[in-house]
C-alpha cells in the first residue's frame, strides 16, 4: 500500500510514458483503440463513427458537455454531404466543417485534453491530424441576480459557472480592445480554465506579471472554486483579513478593472477575484456608485460606525459593567445593575453564551431551506432571547447588545470581511473580560497594527488611511460626487490616472436653462 503521495514532478514524468504523447496515427482504428483504453469505463465518452465519401471518420465527445445540435448540423451533416474522394485536414477545416472555432492537432494528448474540456475531436482514417471542434454546450445555470450581492439600484446580472459566459459579461461592460484576457489552466486533475483580466495601460505591468507568476506556481490536483486560488496566491494566508476581494457582479469587476486592478475568473464558480484589494473596498457596495452621493455618504458613514460596533460593542459592555461602572450615567447604571442582579454569570460569560448562540442560529439559518429558515431564525432569536432572559441566564441589556452587534455585522457588504470581524470580536471580548478597557485598547491597537502591516500585491492594505492620502479618502468614508472623482487610485494606476474630463458638470447657463434648454 502506498503511504506517500507522489510528488507532482513524479506524476508529470509518469505522463511522459503514456501513449497519448504519441502522434495521431493514420489508422482510425488504432487511434480509437488508444482512446478507448484511456477512457476505459468512462460511459459518458461517445464514439460516433460515420463515412465521409470512402473514408471512415469518427467524432469523440463527452455526452452532456457538447452542443449536440451544432455538431449535428455543422460537422456530421456537413461531412456527410461532402462528396470528396481526396480529403486533407485543411479541406475539412476550411471548406467542410462550418463551425466558428476549429483547430487542428497532431497529438493525441491534445485531443484528450480538449475532449475533457467539452470540445469534440474529429478523426479521419488516413489522416495524421485531427480536428478539435469547439461546440461546448450542456446545461448550465443561466445569468441571474447574484444571491450574495443584491442591490436596490443597479444591474441585476451576475456571473455563472461558465467561464465564457462570465468573460462575455465583462466584455459587455468594457467594450475596449485594451481589456485583455489571458487564459490559463490550473489543477492537474480538474484542468480548470481560468482567465486573468486586466486593462492594458491601466494595470501596472509588474502587477500583472506578479499575478501570473503566482498562478503559474500553483501545482495542485484540483481547483474547484476561486477560493483555492485565493488562498494559494494571497500575501498572508494566516491573516484573518481577506487580501483578495471576490464578487459575483460583472459591474463590480469591470469597475475595479478600470481602476487598474486585475481580475481572475475561474470556470465552475460565479465568484471572480479582484486584486489587489484594500480594507476599505470590503465596506463598499456597487450601488454606492449608482445612488446619488448623499445617500452613499450616509450609507458609508453608517457602515464605518457599525463595523466599529460589530467589533467592539460587546467588549465595551463587558469592560464597562465589570471594571468601569463609573463611566455609566447614574440612571443607566441603576437600570443595568437591577437587570443583572439575578444573573449568576459574570458579564463576560453572559456575552459569550449569547454570542455563541447567535452565531449558531445564524449558521443554522444558512443551512436550512429558505422557506423555513427565516422563520426558524426569527423564532429562535426571539424565543431563545426571551426565554433566556426570563430564566435568568442572561440580562435584557445583553440581548439588546448582542442583537445590535449582529445587525451591525450584517451591514458589512462583503461576507468574508463580516466573518473576519465576527471572529475578531471574541478575542476582544476575552481581553475586555480580563483587562477591561486596557485590554480593548491593546486588542484594537494590535488589529490596527496588523492592518497597517498587511499588503495585497504590494499595495498597503489600509491605504488610503495608512499611509494617509487625503485625495483618495474621497472614496472611502464618503463617496464624492462623480464630477469630483476625476482620478483613478494612485496605488494601482501609475500612468493614465485621469478617468474623466475636467468640468464635466453642466455649466451655470445650462443649469439656469438659458443655454440649450427651456427657460
Amino acid at each position, binding site marked *: 500500500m502506498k503511504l506517500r503521495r507522489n510528488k507532482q514532478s513524479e506524476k508529470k514524468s509518469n505522463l511522459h510514458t503514456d501513449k497519448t504523447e504519441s502522434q495521431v496515427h493514420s489508422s482510425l482504428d488504432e487511434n480509437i483503440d488508444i482512446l478507448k483504453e484511456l477512457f476505459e469505463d468512462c460511459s459518458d465518452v461517445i464514439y460516433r463513427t460515420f463515412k465521409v465519401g470512402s473514408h471512415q471518420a469518427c467524432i469523440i465527445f463527452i455526452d452532456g458537455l457538447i452542443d449536440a445540435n451544432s455538431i449535428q448540423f455543422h460537422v456530421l451533416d456537413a461531412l456527410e454531404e461532402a462528396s470528396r474522394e481526396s480529403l486533407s485536414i485543411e479541406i475539412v477545416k476550411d471548406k467542410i466543417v462550418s463551425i466558428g472555432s476549429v483547430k487542428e492537432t497532431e497529438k493525441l494528448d491534445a485531443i484528450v485534453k480538449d475532449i475533457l474540456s467539452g470540445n469534440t475531436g474529429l478523426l479521419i482514417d488516413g489522416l495524421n491530424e485531427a480536428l478539435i471542434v469547439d461546440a461546448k454546450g450542456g446545461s448550465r445555470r443561466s445569468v441571474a441576480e447574484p444571491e450574495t450581492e443584491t442591490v436596490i439600484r443597479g444591474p441585476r446580472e451576475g456571473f455563472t459557472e461558465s467561464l465564457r459566459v462570465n468573460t462575455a459579461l465583462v466584455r459587455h461592460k468594457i467594450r475596449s480592445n485594451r481589456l485583455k484576457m489571458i487564459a490559463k489552466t490550473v489543477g492537474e486533475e480538474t484542468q480548470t480554465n481560468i482567465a486573468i483580466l486586466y486593462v492594458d495601460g491601466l494595470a501596472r505591468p509588474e502587477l500583472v506579471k*506578479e499575478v501570473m507568476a503566482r498562478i503559474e506556481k500553483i501545482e495542485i490536483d484540483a481547483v474547484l472554486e476561486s477560493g483555492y486560488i485565493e488562498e494559494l496566491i494571497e500575501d498572508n494566508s494566516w491573516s484573518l483579513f481577506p487580501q483578495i476581494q471576490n464578487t459575483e457582479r460583472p459591474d463590480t469587476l469591470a469597475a475595479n478593472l478600470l481602476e487598474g486592478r486585475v481580475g481572475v475568473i475561474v470556470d465552475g464558480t460565479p465568484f471572480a477575484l479582484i486584486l489587489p484589494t484594500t480594507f476599505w473596498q470590503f465596506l463598499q457596495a456597487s450601488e454606492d456608485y449608482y445612488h446619488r452621493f448623499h445617500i452613499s455618504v450616509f450609507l458609508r458613514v453608517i457602515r464605518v460606525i457599525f463595523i466599529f460596533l460589530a467589533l467592539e460593542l460587546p467588549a465595551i459592555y463587558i469592560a464597562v459593567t465589570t471594571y468601569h461602572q463609573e*463611566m455609566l*450615567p447614574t440612571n443607566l447604571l441603576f437600570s443595568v445593575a437591577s437587570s443583572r442582579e439575578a444573573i449568576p454569570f459574570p458579564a463576560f460569560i453572559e456575552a459569550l453564551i449569547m454570542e455563541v448562540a447567535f452565531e449558531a442560529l445564524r449558521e443554522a439559518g444558512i443551512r436550512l431551506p429558505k422557506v423555513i429558515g427565516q422563520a426558524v431564525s426569527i423564532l429562535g432569536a426571539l424565543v431563545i432571547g426571551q426565554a433566556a432572559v426570563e430564566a435568568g441566564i442572561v440580562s435584557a441589556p445583553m440581548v439588546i447588545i448582542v442583537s445590535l452587534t449582529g445587525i451591525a455585522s450584517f451591514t458589512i457588504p462583503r461576507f468574508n470581511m463580516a466573518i473576519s470581524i465576527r471572529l475578531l470580536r471574541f478575542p476582544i471580548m476575552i481581553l475586555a473580560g480580563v483587562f477591561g478597557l486596557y485590554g480593548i485598547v491593546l486588542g484594537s491597537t*494590535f488589529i490596527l*497594527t496588523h492592518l*497597517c502591516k498587511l*499588503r495585497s500585491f*504590494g499595495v498597503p492594505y489600509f491605504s488610503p488611511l495608512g499611509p*494617509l492620502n487625503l485625495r483618495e479618502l474621497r472614496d472611502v468614508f464618503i463617496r464624492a460626487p462623480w464630477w469630483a472623482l476625476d482620478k483613478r487610485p494612485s*496605488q494601482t494606476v501609475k500612468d493614465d490616472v485621469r478617468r474623466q474630463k475636467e468640468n464635466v458638470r453642466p455649466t451655470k447657463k445650462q443649469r439656469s436653462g438659458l443655454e440649450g434648454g427651456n427657460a
Partner: protein
Amino acid sequence: MAEPVNWQSGKNGGEILTEKISSFQLSILVANFLFTGVIISLPQVLAESSNQVSWLSPLVVLGVISGFLWLVVGKTKQLQRLSKTFLLGKPTKLERVFLVCFGILFITAAIRDLRALIDFVATVLLPTTPIDVMSILAGFIVIYMAAAGLEVIARVTVIQFITLAAVIIALPFMLMNGMELGNFQPIMDVDLLPGLAKSSFLLLSWAGEAIFILILIQNLDDVAGAKKATVRGIVVAMCLFALVVAVEVAVLGVDIVSVSSYPSLQMIQQINLTDFLDRLDLVIVTIWIPCFIAKIALDVYLVNRCLTSGKKQPNNIIIIPLGIALAHLSVLLFRNNTEHIEFSFYTWAVWGLALELLIGIIFIIRRKIS
C-alpha cells in the same frame, strides 16, 4: 503627503525595498514622540516651577530645540550626502560612540515610558491588576508594532495622533464652562521669569528626544525636507502641549495642577457636556493610550536599529528579547510610582539633556568629517 510606493510582493518573489517614510509621516512621528510622553505628569512639575505661566515653557522650548536640531542637522546638501554613508555598512569608531549614546538614551526613554504607561493604567483603569501582568501585555503589543517596522509604526502613529490632536484641539471648547481666566493672573511678571526658565529646563530633555530623527535619515523619502518636517513636528507637539497646560491652569488652577499626579486626567474629568456625557475621561484615555504605545514601539525600534546597525543578520532578530527585557526592567528599576516620577522629572532633565547634547555634537563632527 502619501507614503512612497514600495513594490513588494513578499511571498513569491519581488523585492522588499528599504522602508521609507514621507516628510509628513516624519512630522507626525516627531509630534507624537514628544507630545504623548509629556502630557501624563509633566504639567505638575511645570506648574510647580512656573505657576500660572507654565503654559509658556513649551513655547520657549520649541524655539530652543528647533534651533538646536536645525544646527545639528546642518545644510541640506550635506545631509543628503551624509544619508548615503551614515551608519551604512560597518560603523566607524565615531559612529559606534554615536550608537552607544543613542542606545543608552532610548533604552532609558523606553523603560521610563513603559513604566509611565503601566503606572497610569494601574492607577486609572486597573488598580487591582499586578503591574507585572500589565507590563507583559504592553510589552507584547510594543514588540509586535516595533517588529512590524518603521513604515507600520508611522502609519499607526499618523492615524492615532490625528485623532488625539483633534480631541486636544476640541478640549478648550468642551471645558469652556469650567475655565476661569483669572487663574492666569498675573500673566507677565518679571518675578516669574526664573520659574519659567526652570520649567523650560525641565522640559528641554523631553523635547530634545526629537534627536531620534538622526538615525532615520536613510529612511526618509525626502532627505532635503527632513529639517522642516522635524521642526513642524516639534511645533505641533509643543503647541498642543502648551494648549493642554493652559487649559489645565484655566480649569483646575495652579494649586491643583502642581500637586496632582495626573493633572491632565483630572482636567478631562471636568468635562461635562450634558448629564449623559460627563465621563469622557476614560474615552479620551483610550484615544491617548495607542499613541503612547506607538511612541514606545518607536523607542524599541530605535534601540533595535542601534544594536543591529551594520549587521548582516535580519534586523528583527533581537526585538523580542529586547522588548521583553525592557518591559521587565521597567518594573524592576523603579520601586514605585513616586520613584519613577522623580526620575522622569529631575533625573531625566539632566541625564536626557546630556546625552542629547552629546549625540548632537557627535553628529555634527561626523557631518563635518563627511
